[in-house]
């Protein structure tokens, strides 16, 4: 069953065709990776799915509902949550606070109730704090939950980004280069983490450079080059696809780990 | 409505002349503030005060001591540049380094403006000042009046603007400034002495403002409290044109000057400025980066 459907999506920046008539789908429960050389349009694609960029043409359906061009927070409300490529954080806030804020969509008591600190809002706050602490523990951040984000090492920040995204209770999690800059051990742990998330019933769409990791983790892969989809299939199929090798892999065999 | 075509023609040419004359000096003001903004990311609220300082330098050297006009302009540029360098060194540099929030520099600039205002009042007194015309006479062109003194100011301002553009585009320090404006860190990595060139940029921006003040006092009057109004005009211009861009400063100066020239002719009163400001706000909603809003260069 398809959870996300991208059809004929295009985006132009001035004279540059960043994404060109791209179509693919993400099935519920799978881990799908989008690969491609730098500047292939992966990030642009990502931003359009998350609602951070409006496409010039084409459609995006999530859960059979159209989300094309809707603002980020609406897309997030519907269950599509992204993490950021850069280490984008609320610098001064603690890790716990990050995840508490990310529970925003779960808060149901009104703004007025929160303002006057009503009993209901207090109970809800307590519940959110607990949930946030649980998520942090699950991702191995429990011991740094009170540390300001600006003082955390990069690896932790990426986990923190995922923790925030999880707190928003996504159906589809968009991960932007989750393994970039990690050493093999860290990558192993991260792969386990992503698999664990997928096991919990969250569909994962990720964009990544690290081919080793992509090949190990993905159920399916979409390969893009110069804004176009050039191949789609299982890791095995992609590894053997001539146009992928031609566009990307042929030049840098070692990256594939063949 | 019953107006002779020749009359309308002369109105049009007068409006064009007025707009051009205004825009030349406006451009100098806008270039100075946009340079400082591009290099330091500081919205220099004290820009108008530097203009006033430049004006008073020319008042004393040319108006009271009767030095040659060119020399007194030079003195104005140098003195104001020196003040700019002092402010950069002792005020902005340290706050930029230590502050937790980027707003700090802007607020420091507001404080500096206040300080310079009070200093100017203490040093130069409360009276309006002006100097005799450098050149006299009036030219007529297609029904428009062009006073010689305005033409002179226009010419000097145009030459200075051109010189500035040449400097920024074709000289080594100019290229360094552009590199810093584009990306401080990259510029530093490429071996540009960021600290030194930032100071240079600040001094140069200040000098431009001082020159504008020095030029304008030769046709207009100035008093020690006139700075804030000039600063606001400078802000409006670089918002129209796009902050931190040379072409934007010039575009902003042209647009503001012609809006004033046209607005004041057809609707005398305070409405033109209300319309200019409302227009600016609406315009920025559609084009927040201004007309030429690109990166510096």
């Amino acid at each position, binding site marked *: 069953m398809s959870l996300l459907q991208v059809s004929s999506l295009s985006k132009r920046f001035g004279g540059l065709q960043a994404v060109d008539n791209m179509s693919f789908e993400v099935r519920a429960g799978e881990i799908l990776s989008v690969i491609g050389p730098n500047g292939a349009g992966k990030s642009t694609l990502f931003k359009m799915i998350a609602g951070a960029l409006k496409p010039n043409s084409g459609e995006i359906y999530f859960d059979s509902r159209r989300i094309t061009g809707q603002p980020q927070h609406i897309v997030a409300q519907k269950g599509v949550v992204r993490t950021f490529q850069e280490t984008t954080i609320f610098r001064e806030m603690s890790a716990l606070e990050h995840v508490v804020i990310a529970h925003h969509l779960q808060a149901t008591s009104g703004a007025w109730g929160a303002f006057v600190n009503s009993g209901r809002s207090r109970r809800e706050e307590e519940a959110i704090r607990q949930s946030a602490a649980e998520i942090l523990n699950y991702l191995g951040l429990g011991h740094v939950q009170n540390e300001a984000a600006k003082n955390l090492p990069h690896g932790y920040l990426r986990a923190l980004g995922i923790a925030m995204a999880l707190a928003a209770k996504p159906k589809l999690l968009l991960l932007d280069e989750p393994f970039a800059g990690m050493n093999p051990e860290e990558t192993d742990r991260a792969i386990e983490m992503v698999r664990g998330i997928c096991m919990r019933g969250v569909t994962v769409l990720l964009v990544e450079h690290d081919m080793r990791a992509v090949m190990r983790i993905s159920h399916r892969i979409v390969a893009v080059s110069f804004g176009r989809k050039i191949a789609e299939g299982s890791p095995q199929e992609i590894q053997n696809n001539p146009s992928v090798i031609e566009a990307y892999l042929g030049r840098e065999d070692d990256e594939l780990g063949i | 409505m019953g107006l002779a075509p020749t009359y309308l023609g002369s109105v049009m040419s007068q409006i064009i002349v007025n707009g051009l004359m205004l825009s030349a000096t406006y451009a100098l003001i806008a270039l100075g503030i946009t340079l400082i903004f591009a290099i330091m990311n500081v919205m220099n609220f004290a820009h108008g005060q530097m203009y006033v300082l430049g004006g008073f330098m020319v008042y004393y050297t040319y108006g009271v001591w009767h030095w040659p006009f060119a020399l007194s302009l030079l003195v104005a540029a140098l003195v104001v540049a020196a003040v700019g360098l002092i402010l950069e060194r002792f005020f902005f540099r340290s706050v930029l380094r230590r502050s937790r929030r980027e707003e700090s520099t802007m607020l420091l600039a507001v404080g500096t403006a206040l300080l310079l205002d009070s200093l100017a009042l203490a040093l130069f007194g409360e009276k309006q000042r*002006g100097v005799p015309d450098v050149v006299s006479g009036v030219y007529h062109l297609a029904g428009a*009046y062009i006073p010689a003194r305005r033409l002179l100011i226009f010419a000097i301002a145009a030459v200075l603007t051109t010189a500035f553009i040449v400097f920024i585009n074709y000289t080594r320090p100019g290229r360094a400034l552009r590199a810093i404006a584009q990306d401080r860190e990259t510029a530093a990595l490429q071996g540009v002495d960021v600290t030194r060139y930032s100071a240079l940029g600040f001094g140069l921006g200040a000098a431009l403002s001082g020159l504008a003040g020095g030029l304008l006092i030769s046709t207009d009057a100035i008093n020690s409290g006139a700075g804030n109004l000039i600063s606001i005009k400078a802000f409006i211009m670089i918002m129209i044109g796009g902050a931190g861009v040379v072409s934007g400063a010039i575009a902003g100066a042209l647009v503001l000057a012609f809006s004033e020239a046209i607005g004041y002719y057809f609707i005398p009163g305070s409405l033109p400025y209300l319309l200019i400001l409302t227009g600016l706000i609406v315009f920025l909603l559609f084009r927040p980066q201004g007309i030429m809003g690109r990166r510096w260069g």
Partner: protein
Amino acid sequence: MKATAVLGVGLFFIGVALAQQPVLKIGVNGVMSGPAASWGLVNKYSAETTAAMINAEGGWKIGDKKYKVEIVALDDKNDPKISAANAEKLVSMGVKYIIGPNVDTTAGAVMPVMEKAKAINFPYAFSKELYTPPHGNSILGMIASYQAGPVIYKYLKEKKGVKNIAFLARNEADPLNQMKEGEDAAKMLGLNIVTSGATYEPGTTDFAPVLQGILAKNPDLLVLSGVAPGDAPLLIKSAREMGYKGLLSTETAQDAKILQQVAGSLADGFISVGGASTPSIQTPYMLDFVKAYTKRVGEWNDEAGTKVYALEMILRTLQLAGPAAINDVELFKKTLTKFNIPNPFVKGNPPLKFVGSAYFSQPRQLGVPMVVNEFKDGKFQTLFVGSVE
């Protein structure tokens, strides 16, 4: 030994005498910083100069005591909140008579303070409501332009054949009010107003765009309503350069030096109102004042010619009303109608009194003579001296 003892005792008594001399505090509350600083500062300098001259003579006699006159000057930054706080401060110090503030915005905020504290102030703001019943604790410090306007227009209509008149004002409360009053006066005289409501923004440096539309209507007289001394020469110069041949006038005081510096001979024939500004009409006392002012401040300012009156008239009215009036402004108010003295600053002219009944239905204006001047060869020359009722 003996001599020094005597000297010491003598000095002691002199000291006691000095210490015992009663002090009369007069306040100045006005704008003394920012772009309009000169308005309040000239008030302050004028009052301080007069006070110093009086104190040098041993003080000011009211009743049978000689008072040392002390000026307490406060800067209100042209901000109504600070102006009101300053007024409160002055009255809390026991000051009952305050010179200033300088614009409608601040004068409006100070008025309630004066009424509550039973004190009197002398604003240089022209809003009629300040001086008209039920209000009565503010006394206009100078000739209002709407009073000078008709006199000047009438003179120019009769002597120079003016028919078409145009107005231009700086876009601020005071000048705009003056323009409105001026237009009404011109209508009463049957003059033809060719432009109405033309203004320019504060901070304008190039007046060509503003003037262009006005001059196209060919006025015989261009009135610069409430024009600031810095703007006047620029407007005159621009108008002349654009080929304007008609007359130029204003109803506010101007500064000869800046006219000469900026406009030079182009300003010849410009008509303005001054206080006691031309040497031909100055009394020796005024000449002394000019000398003392110049020594104190470093440079004479023609604006002081109108602002010299406030303190002088306060003191002389107190002298007439008696010492009780120092703390009781009702006595001061009662004396206003009786006050009538020869003008100490201007030679051979109508006596000095409190006027304004015709405008405010009560005497709430200093009867500063209306000295109408014409600028010529870098100096003002008095055309005629009028007065206001």
